């Protein structure tokens, strides 16, 4: 292994500082009430108490979590079934599935939301419901991440042989898929869904364009807080970052566990 030179360490430190400054400054800003002198005074966690006791904030947080879960579950089920069918019955279609699942990478949120609106806004069925539109839009946005994660997981297990082995032992293909393949790619599924959680948590554009302020998620709450109280906005921002960090930590933990079990295999 190469020894790290002082230069590369310095560069990494600089980048770290650059990335952490906004976060640290926001955290400090949210914790002090008096900014008239050079050194801030008046340490207080009042803003955190305030936002956590604000039912609107809790509702926004709950909504955001709820609006995360539904599209993720839908997308995982759809991708799993699609990959199952292509792997077993139509292996030649796999590359088309891949292309379709990768397209959303290139679509900007604004374009996607405007397109969905113009398509469905005059629809009188359930598809015209703003919330359904939002869920659908999130499904599209997270599709590449979920697809890539699950497909990589499937590559790591030898799916055709495992399915054939299960079939020879008396299991149906679908049963074998959910009993044998899915448990083996579970950590891949979890990792990709946590990625999707991060994406939906950070969304402002889609929810703003599709639902306006009718559906107040955490980003909308943040936006409104910014207009009224900078200190409160900073506190909200810190909470969002904390939740995102927590998600990342879980992802890293799961990945390291997966690597460990992969290393154990000879």
């Amino acid at each position, binding site marked *: 292994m190469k020894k790290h030179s002082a230069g590369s360490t310095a560069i990494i430190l600089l980048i770290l500082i650059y990335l952490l400054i906004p976060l640290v400054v926001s955290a400090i800003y949210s914790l002090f009430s008096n900014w008239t002198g050079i050194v801030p005074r008046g340490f207080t966690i009042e803003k955190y108490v305030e936002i956590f006791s604000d039912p609107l904030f809790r509702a926004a947080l709950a909504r955001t979590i709820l609006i995360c879960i539904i599209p993720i579950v839908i997308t995982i089920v759809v991708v799993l079934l699609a990959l199952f069918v292509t792997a077993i019955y139509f292996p030649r279609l796999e590359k088309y599935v891949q292309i379709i699942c990768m397209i959303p990478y290139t679509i900007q949120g604004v374009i996607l939301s405007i397109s969905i609106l113009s398509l469905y806004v005059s629809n009188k069925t359930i598809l015209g419901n703003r919330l359904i539109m939002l869920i659908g839009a999130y499904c599209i946005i997270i599709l590449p991440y979920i697809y890539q994660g699950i497909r990589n997981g499937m590559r790591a297990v030898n799916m055709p042989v495992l399915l054939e082995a299960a079939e020879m*032992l008396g299991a149906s293909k679908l049963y074998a898929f959910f009993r044998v393949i899915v448990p083996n790619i579970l950590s891949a599924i979890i990792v990709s869904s946590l990625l999707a959680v991060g994406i939906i948590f950070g969304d402002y554009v889609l929810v703003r364009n599709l639902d306006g302020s009718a559906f107040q998620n955490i980003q909308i709450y943040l936006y409104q807080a910014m207009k009224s109280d900078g200190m409160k906005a900073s506190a909200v921002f810190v909470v969002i970052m904390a939740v995102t960090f927590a998600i990342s930590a879980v992802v890293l933990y799961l990945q390291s566990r997966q690597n460990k079990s992969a290393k154990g295999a000879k």
Partner: protein
Amino acid sequence: MAYIRFENLNKSFGEKAVLKDINLDIEQGQLVTLLGPSGCGKSTLLRCLAGLETVTSGKVYLDGTDITDVNPRDRGIGMVFQQYSLFPNMTAAQNVAFGLKMKKVPSNEIDTKVNNILDVVGLSAQKAQYPSQMSGGQQQRAALARALVTEPKVLLLDEPLSAIDALLRHNLQVEIRRIQQELGITAIFVTHDQEEAMVMSDVIHLMYNGGIEQSARPIDLYTQPKSTFVASFIGHYNLLSAEDMQKATGEKPESGNVAFRPEIISISRTPIEKENCFTMHGTVNVSLPHGNILRYATVCNGVQIDVDVLFGENEVFDRGDEVYLAVSKSECVYL
């Protein structure tokens, strides 16, 4: 009717015919080997019996019933695969129990059966281990136990030892043969390794290019190849055309090609006088030690003849030495 019968079996992948009109009978209680070079159709034939490939035309019978269109899971066939195929999320014991659970065997019965079969394959100590904690040999033993525990009518083994290193492979060959004879189960073993086929089988079906080239007991296949392909695939036959034979020995053989095994040739520094022999005179070109035997590649009047001698009890020759060779005419195979 034989226990297993393939009748006029054809299988094509698109335009490519992989199995061409196979007719094959397999008797109950035997271990038979499908032997052949890669791409000869041996694995495909096995998979047709398992039901993992559909046949293009023809019939497959097992135990008197036509199973051509029966679902793989209803055929009562156990299979061990080439790649490790244990379910990674289950322990050895859970893997073995999988097939019994599918059959809805009561759980106390499952435990007894699983313990018994793990004992037979020598894995009792590993029953709580996951596949990633087991060696390749242990994994294939567990896969064997998993295939055997449901008491299948026939056990299929698709090159199960090809990923395992040489020493362990030899042990497992003997082991599989022992278990097969102990349980009296009918087994079909696919391999491209002729030594493995020789060691394990009651009958070898040598396949070539989508057909059965020769079916025989291992020793008969070795000593009496029926075609030039069999002679070139089995052992290290010297396979000479009539012209080469005349160049090397000065005699024209009665017909066609002549094949003789390198270990039946006598080699000496002085001319060999023997009745009914082809005699040759040449020089040693290469000497290759194969452990217990030494293989000399000699050149006799421009024709290469390989000679095997047991190492130790024979005179050792060097590159460039002049040698005389003799091979009994009755031991040659005329093809």
